[in-house]
Every structure is written in structure tokens, then in C-alpha cells.
């Protein structure tokens, strides 16, 4: 259980983000400590993607602050944040369909080309299938393989925090289990992960802590066990 004595790797404080007049994220505060898997639970449109993309540096915050590894990053461009160790596995994978697997992986290392060969070796150890298909065009991969490619591409940037947006979207349940198992294994090897999911049951089972987002605000937060047994969460997200 993380304590306040440890310094948070990511700390989002009273963050609000809006598109024009729509407040997509309202006064959200959350923390991710080193070594944790934290899950953001919420329905479609709850603001999960906007929150993750704001942390990455795609949307500028309207108010509030984002601190990553001790530095203020609110309004800092995404390429700088990726260089500093943040990365996002986008919703729907976001792999470049017309490029081959190797090029997709190398794009992940765009801001960090120094240790490219050793990063590639490590990714291929994690995902041997990607090595086998490295000359194959990404369009020809299965959904699960694309998700592995997207995660592998994130690993290429030598991240300190991996944000994964809805990895289960559009995948068969058995593949979802595989992907979540991979994330759990990555976490046990030291990677810190911030995960967003609609599939609350499976996600909470592999996470340490969770936040429930409702229409852009945090409705509830706590340890994964507590959220799994919370009557409100069970009713709204676990179908109990």
C-alpha cells in the first residue's frame, strides 16, 4: 500500500480541461506512485481519454496542475513529456496500419534513439510474435497483436509511466485476459502503469488502486479490493 511518505510519480491536482464550452475533465485530482497499477474506471464519455491525453500534453489544462517526476508539465508539449518518460498506448491501439511492425516500434523510440537496439531486443523478448512479424505491415496483424505492438512501441520510449487507454476495446475476452496479464507482468518487472477501462471487473482485479470517473469528475477512489466490493461500483460497473 503506497503511503504519502513516498513521492508520487504522477500527481494531478484539481485539473480541469475543456473543449470550447464543454468541460470534459472537472476538478480531477489523482496520484500514481512508482510501482503501481492504477485504474481509471468510467463509462464512455466519462473523460478518461481526455484526462490521459491531457497528462501526455495533447490538451492544455484550463486550470489545475500536473506534476510528473517532480516537474510541472501542465501545458508542456507531448514530445517533451515522452522524452521525460511519459507515454500513452492510445485507445484503439493507434498503430500505423500502412507501416511495418519494425517501423512502428522505431517510431516509439523517435525521441530516444540512443539505446534503440537494446530496447528492440527487450521488446522482442516480451513479444516474440512481433519479432517474427517485424517486416509485416501492421494492417495484417490481429487485434491482439496490434495491442501488443502498441504496448511494445510504448516500451521503446524507455517510459517511467505507461498510460494505457482502454486496451480491451474491441478485443475478444480471452485476448483481453492476455493483455491484462502482460500489463501485470510488466508491472511486476518495475513498470508503473495508469490504465483506463470500462471493463471494471477485470481491470480492478489486476490493479492496486482505482478511481471512478463520472462525467469528468472523480466520484470515488480507493484500493482495488475496496472498489471491487463497493456496492455503488458493483451496481454501476460490475453488473451486480
Amino acid at each position, binding site marked *: 500500500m503506497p503511503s504519502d511518505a513516498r513521492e508520487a510519480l504522477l500527481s494531478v491536482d484539481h485539473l480541469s480541461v475543456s473543449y470550447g464550452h464543454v468541460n470534459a475533465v472537472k476538478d480531477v485530482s489523482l496520484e500514481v506512485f512508482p510501482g503501481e497499477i492504477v485504474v481509471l474506471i468510467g463509462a464512455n464519455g466519462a473523460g478518461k481519454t481526455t484526462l490521459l491525453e491531457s497528462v501526455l500534453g495533447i490538451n492544455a489544462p484550463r486550470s489545475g496542475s500536473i506534476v510528473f517526476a517532480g516537474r510541472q508539465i501542465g501545458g508542456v508539449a*507531448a*514530445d517533451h513529456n515522452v522524452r521525460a518518460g511519459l507515454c500513452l498506448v*492510445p485507445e484503439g491501439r493507434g498503430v500505423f496500419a500502412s507501416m511495418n511492425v519494425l517501423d512502428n516500434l522505431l517510431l516509439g523510440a523517435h525521441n530516444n534513439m540512443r539505446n534503440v537496439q537494446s530496447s528492440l531486443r527487450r521488446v522482442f523478448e516480451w513479444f516474440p510474435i512481433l519479432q517474427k512479424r517485424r517486416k509485416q505491415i501492421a494492417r495484417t496483424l490481429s487485434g491482439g497483436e496490434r495491442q501488443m505492438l502498441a504496448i511494445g512501441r510504448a516500451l521503446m520510449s524507455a517510459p517511467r509511466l505507461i498510460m494505457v487507454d482502454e486496451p480491451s476495446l474491441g478485443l475478444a475476452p480471452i485476448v483481453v485476459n492476455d493483455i491484462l496479464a502482460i500489463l501485470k507482468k510488466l508491472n511486476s518487472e518495475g513498470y508503473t502503469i495508469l490504465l483506463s477501462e470500462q471493463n471494471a471487473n477485470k481491470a480492478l482485479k489486476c490493479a492496486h488502486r482505482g478511481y471512478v470517473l463520472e462525467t469528468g469528475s472523480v466520484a470515488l477512489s480507493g484500493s482495488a479490493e475496496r472498489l471491487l466490493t463497493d456496492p455503488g461500483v458493483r451496481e454501476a460497473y460490475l453488473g451486480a
Partner: protein
Amino acid sequence: MQVFVAQLINGLSLGSIYVLLVTGFNLLLLVAMIIHFSYPQVVVFSMYIIWVVLQLTGNNLFLGIAAGVVSSICLNLLSAPLFQKVMRKRGEVDINSTMVLSLGIGMIITDVLSHTFNKGLPVAFPDQLASVTPLLRVGLISVQVGQVWSLGVGFVAVSAIFLILYRTRPGRAFRAIAEDPNGARLVGIPILRTGLASYALSGVLGGVTAVLLAMVLGSASPGLGEQVAHKVLAVSIIAGLGNLAGGLVVGLALGVLEAIVQGYISGTWSNAIAFVILLIVILARPRGLFGSKL
């Protein structure tokens, strides 16, 4: 038969210039996300710079060519902040407003050329650059130095572009932005800075093309840029907007077609025929012969 071979040589050398121009245009379209309709006008402006420098230096070819290439790169880079400002103000990429800006740049260039240099009369390049004595002559077939250069340099330059795109880190980023700008941003590719590299690269291409045009045509006039701009846009649309390989095929084909029309019918028809083909293609295949990459 001799007419055919002669016109085939003329056509291929002219075509390779179209290929260079359409490649630069497509790079800007794909990576910088602008419709730089007047890119050929910028190239013609560089031809004038070459002419001025040749005049000033007593026909020093090295300085003339260097000035052409450097001015083309500078003009491209100077226009970049204007285009990026238009894009950023709209929040999102607004490709239509970049076309209006490009049109304006083209008009300014045409006006400057027709008022400032040589009283608006066409400028002629000296024999050192645009030699009229053929390298080879067999009957009606003659091969000019400029034609050999434009084919050779065209081939090398286009190969170099493909090598950059498929074998280098910036090239990979170019392709990523071309395929999915938002996705590229999410993996941490700096969109504006990478876009700037594409301005520089199409500036190099434009400078090389300015030299080749001077060699092949032997002269330049204020209206030249506009004429060429229409054809480059047509080539890009016929091939499929942003399709580099398609631009290669269609650019060469247009050059050959124009030369054949010139050889057998009349040069004045070549424009009309090119645009009739454009209309037919737009009606039959709205995304171009090889498919648009936008």
C-alpha cells in the same frame, strides 16, 4: 519514328521536372499538411535568383546554382511560420486556408517578377547553363545537355527522397504524420518541427528543379510559375493527392504526352489535353488513378 523518339526524349526530361515538382508539392501536403498550390512559383522565383547571380558574377555557374538552391530553401522556410500560424489559429489543421495563403504568395511572386526583374520581360539563361548545342544528333533526334541532366538528377533526387522516407528517422516520422497526424502526436512526434523539416526538404527539391528548368527551357518569365503550378496540381490530383509513386508515373506520362502532342498536333493543345484528362479522371476516379493518400 524519329519524331516519336525525339519527342519521347523531350517528354521524359520535361516529365522528370514535373515529377520533382509534384514530389515537393506532395511532401508539403502530407507532412506539413498544407496545399502549397504556388510551390512551382517559388521555384520560378529561384530561377530568377539564379539569373541575377549569373549576371552579377559574370556567369559563375557554381555561385548561380548555389544561390538557386539556397534561395529556394530559404523561401520555403520563411513561408513556414505563415502557414503554421494559419494552422494554429484555427486550432485544428485547416488545409483550405493554407491554399488561400499559398495562392497569395504565388500572386505576390508573379507581381514581383513582372515589375522588378528585366522590366518584366522573359530572362534568358547564358549558354554556360542552358547550352543549345546538342550532345548528340541523329537525324531529327537531338539530345541536349540539360535533358540528360534533368533525367539523371530527377532520378537521383527522387531515389534520395524515397531513401529518406523509408530508411531514416525523420523519414519515418514524415510517413507517420502523413498517415495519421493525431496518432503521430500521441507517440510523441513533434508535428510542427517535423513539418519544418519537410519545408526544408521540398526547398532542396525546388532549388534543384529551378536549375534544371533553367537548363531545359533556357529562359524564365513571370507567368511560368502559374502555368507549371496548374500542371503540378493536375498531376497530383490525377495520380491521387499525396501519392508519391503515383506522382512519379503521372508526372513522366504528362511530360511525354505533352511532347507527343507538340510533335504531332500542336504545342498549343497540350494544356487543353492535359486538363481534359484531368476532368475525365476526376469523374471516373475521384481519388485519382493510384488512390489519394490523404
